């Protein structure tokens, strides 16, 4: 890869990381009276096997979600921040209680891979299309030099219009 290519790649990477930052900062939020309580509920996974967050689990007398909710309220009453409360739960129950991987260390891979894959795919598509476009130009030029009588601009325009009509 040329230096210019490398610089452009770094540019792309920057754009994509910036986009990731924005997307992480503007999560969809539910309209709710107790935002922080619900946020914490949604950050924790119910351990009853339902696979849902503590907020979503509605099992009758759930042995996991109900005590966890009580515990969240207790922690909130101590005046802790969301991060402190989540840290408390993580320390007590292990990392699997968190409903999404915390963006640190190895877990970064979880968050970055999808965007990295789409980003890398995007670069591949971009370069491929560029190559195909230039190949097309090349062959068109070859054809026009080979042609005994080159088409006039008017004829080319007419041909293109006809083809467009045919393709549509």
């Amino acid at each position, binding site marked *: 890869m040329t230096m210019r290519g490398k610089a452009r790649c770094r540019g792309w990477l920057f754009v994509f990381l910036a986009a990731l930052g924005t997307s992480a900062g503007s999560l969809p939020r539910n309209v709710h009276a107790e935002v922080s309580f619900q946020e914490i509920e949604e950050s924790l996974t119910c351990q009853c096997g339902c696979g*849902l967050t503590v907020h*979503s689990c509605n099992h009758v007398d759930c042995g996991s979600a109900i005590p966890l909710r009580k515990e969240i309220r207790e922690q909130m009453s101590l005046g802790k921040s969301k991060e402190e409360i989540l840290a408390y739960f993580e320390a007590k129950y292990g990392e*699997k209680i968190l409903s999404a*991987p915390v963006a640190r260390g*190895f877990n970064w891979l979880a968050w970055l891979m999808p965007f990295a894959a*789409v980003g890398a795919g995007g670069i591949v598509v971009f370069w491929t299309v560029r190559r195909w476009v230039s190949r097309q130009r090349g062959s068109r030029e070859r054809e026009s030099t080979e042609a005994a009588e080159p088409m006039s601009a008017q004829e080319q325009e007419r041909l293109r219009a006809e083809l467009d009509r045919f393709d549509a």
Partner: protein
Amino acid sequence: MSWSDSGAVALAAAWLLAIYSVAASLWGAWARREDFVRSGQNAVLAVWAFTLVAAADLVRALVGRDFNLEYVAQYSSSTLPLHYTVAALWGGQAGSLLFWLLILTSMSAVVVLQNREQNRALMPYVTATLMVVAVFFASLLVFVTPPFQRLAFTPGDGRDLNPLLQNYWMTIHPPSLYLGYVGCSVPFAFAIAALITGRLDDVWIRSTRRWALFSWFFLSLGNLFGALWAYRVLGWGGYWAWDPVENAAFMPWLTSTAYLHSVMIQEKKNMLKVWNMALVILTFLLTIFGTFLTRSGVISSVHSFTQSGLGPFFMGFLAVAAAISVALLIWRLPALRSENEIDSMLSREAAFLVNNLVLVGIAFAVFWGTIFPVISEAVRGVKITVGPPFFNRVNTPLGLILLFLMGVGPLIAWRRASWVSLRRNFFWPGLLGVLTGAAAIALGTGNYYAVVSLSLCSFVLATIAQEFWRGTRARQAMLHEPWATAFVRLVAKNRRRYGGYIVHLGVVLIFLAITGSSAFRVEQQVTVKQGETFQVGSRTLRFEKVEAWETQHSAHLAAHLTLIDGERTVDVLKPEKRFYKKPEQPATEVAIRSSWGTDLYVVFGSYDQASQTATFLAYINPLIGLLEWGGLVLAIGAIVAAWPQRVPAIRTVAAPESGQRVVPAGK
């Protein structure tokens, strides 16, 4: 224990004949013995007939309450209603595999009958591939989880079907999904046959276009039915939890959607041969991966009732299928290289490539999130959870890009779009999109994603409307037809194109449902005494009383809630708590009142008899009704696109090679 029923015998016969079919087809192709090829194909019909006998025998045992059969005792009971008793065929492990095999062999039989006179060079390998898959499923049924296993004694009654499965959706969600999953095997078999024979032209693609659309149609419906089931039955107010098994059904849908788009480029320009081949293979592998996820229990899931020790078998099959397909693809790479040329970055070809990138990107994100817990445990030894917050955060931006492309793709010209045509096609839709976004902000929508989504939805709706409008106007002007005739003929004469637009319309409605119900949802948990009222959003509900009753099958406790508007009673909602007797299991029955696409959704949480207080979870889910409408529109669109169109017969006069019939172009 013995299992000497007619069903078990039929199953063993199906297994043997499937092996014979593979061997005869391959030998026939190798030795150029058409008689063996034909025999292999006839064997497919026999495999289908024997599988049908086996499935019918299991249904007979279920309906006849033959509790000596382990499967019947496990998944039904004497009080189970008839339709659920029949549905119990796919309610348990062995039965669902048998059902899968039945669909696979039925489709294989149709393929064989369709291709008696055509695709003769491809057919031996198509047959062999389909039957290899059949042998795999039949082997599981014969050796690992036989559905006709008898018990040493006959229990008085069965343990009954899981109460969560005793539901209307149970009768339609699994069959749709299975039809979708299994349908992916047919294009896969043709792709493999094309790779082996080196006949990499358009024939395999044209022969499987309808199959691809068919399986896509049922995958779409299967996913939607699953979502509606979760919403109406599980009672947590949502419809999609990014559960591994939901993801398993969603991933092949994504790659198959990508294929349906990119295949158009191959048909038009003979490009992307490798990519299309890869998508077909990937889609098939994902259906097997999905089954592996469901059965293996490697990743915990709400569908854990289907868990079993079958995981390693599916993993093995998946690995072998992947290795063979990839090897074939690499072997044929030189022949698949096409003279790829694109006129311009601003062309539909380029837009479709980006669409494919995003669709496959979402599929990858879903795949990655689903398996990341396993990777984390393997690398760090730490169990972690990758739940809905992860998938929502990663997929929302990608989904919005896709929505945008759905508006752009169909309107950007093939080959090369001029700035004039871009302005002409995008001015009004673009303006409408911007105005919608501005209106959403002005009305106080604080959610950035919701604004973008609403804006894009109206942009795409406008592009679709504009296409129908222009097409109809053009026919009116040129052929002097009345507008209704012009409209109907416009669609009827260009079914693929306008069917596609109708599908897009359905997808926009689904996007609107997702946006409304996730961004503007209101939820309230209340504990109230009898006679007290409570608010949820702008609605007022009064808790009137509790009613209890019992049936042979279950005990019920229903709360009566009146929806009041001032002094007027608008409706009475009756959410229930149920207790099933066999197996003893509590369940909730949600009360839903829909009006104009917005649902008032009430769950009866708990009840304390002494204090006569009840706890309710009440939700207002705006626009969620569009989920069903979107599904319906999407289905109609897919049917329009797949409906056979009479093509003016353009028959090439050429000597048919080895019995190959010349197919009219455009078929």
